[in-house]
């Protein structure tokens, strides 16, 4: 089964501090793609960061970085210098590509609150 587990339903952090959101996944595929999406109250899912499984180097996008451990099937998101606008639901997902189709498998999300 292809699954994504986010073990922290809710987290909070003080503004300007660093927070790490956990994600583990299970797949038998050797090449796949991993994503973190942010969903603010507007409901629109916004891509935060993307990682290709065959790349060992961890992806970084400004204040967002990942710790990708392929053997452990772990893909955590680190947010540095947290800002109030980072308050949102965060979803970890990996992409299955099969026979020309592709689909994202999502975790249940982590609700992050950044406190002033």
């Amino acid at each position: 089964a292809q699954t994504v587990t986010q073990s922290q339903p809710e987290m909070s952090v003080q503004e300007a501090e660093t927070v790490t959101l956990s994600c583990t996944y299970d797949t038998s595929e050797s090449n796949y793609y991993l994503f973190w999406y942010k969903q603010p109250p507007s409901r629109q899912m916004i891509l935060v960061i993307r990682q290709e499984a065959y790349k060992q180097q961890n992806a970084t996008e400004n204040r967002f970085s990942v710790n990708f451990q392929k053997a452990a099937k772990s893909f955590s998101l680190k947010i540095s210098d947290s800002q109030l606008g980072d308050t949102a639901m965060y979803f970890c997902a990996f992409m299955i590509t099969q026979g020309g189709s592709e689909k994202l498998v999502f975790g249940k999300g982590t609700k992050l609150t950044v406190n002033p």
Partner: protein
Amino acid sequence: GAGVSQSPSNKVTEKGKDVELRCDPISGHTALYWYRQSLGQGLEFLIYFQGNSAPDKSGLPSDRFSAERTGGSVSTLTIQRTQQEDSAVYLCASSLQFGRYSGYTFGSGTRLTVV
């Protein structure tokens, strides 16, 4: 358009009625996806369109659900004989050819409430 547009934003319907949800993807995006987000859950894949290829309908939960994409652009998700368990946010997304390379651009969804 500049983003993925979905309508209506909210829809309340009576159990047993049919509903149509519309998605207008970003111009030039050949791939279009529908996902469902039930309360407190992650997103669940429903259907994937890619250009003129046959769609991947493997995520549709029952034969009450169908979707079409006309002219490679606008898509409509139809739910017939709605049930209370169909209440959810339905999200549409599009991408340039394959989302694996760039991720998807999502719309703001349609919140469907079946009463």
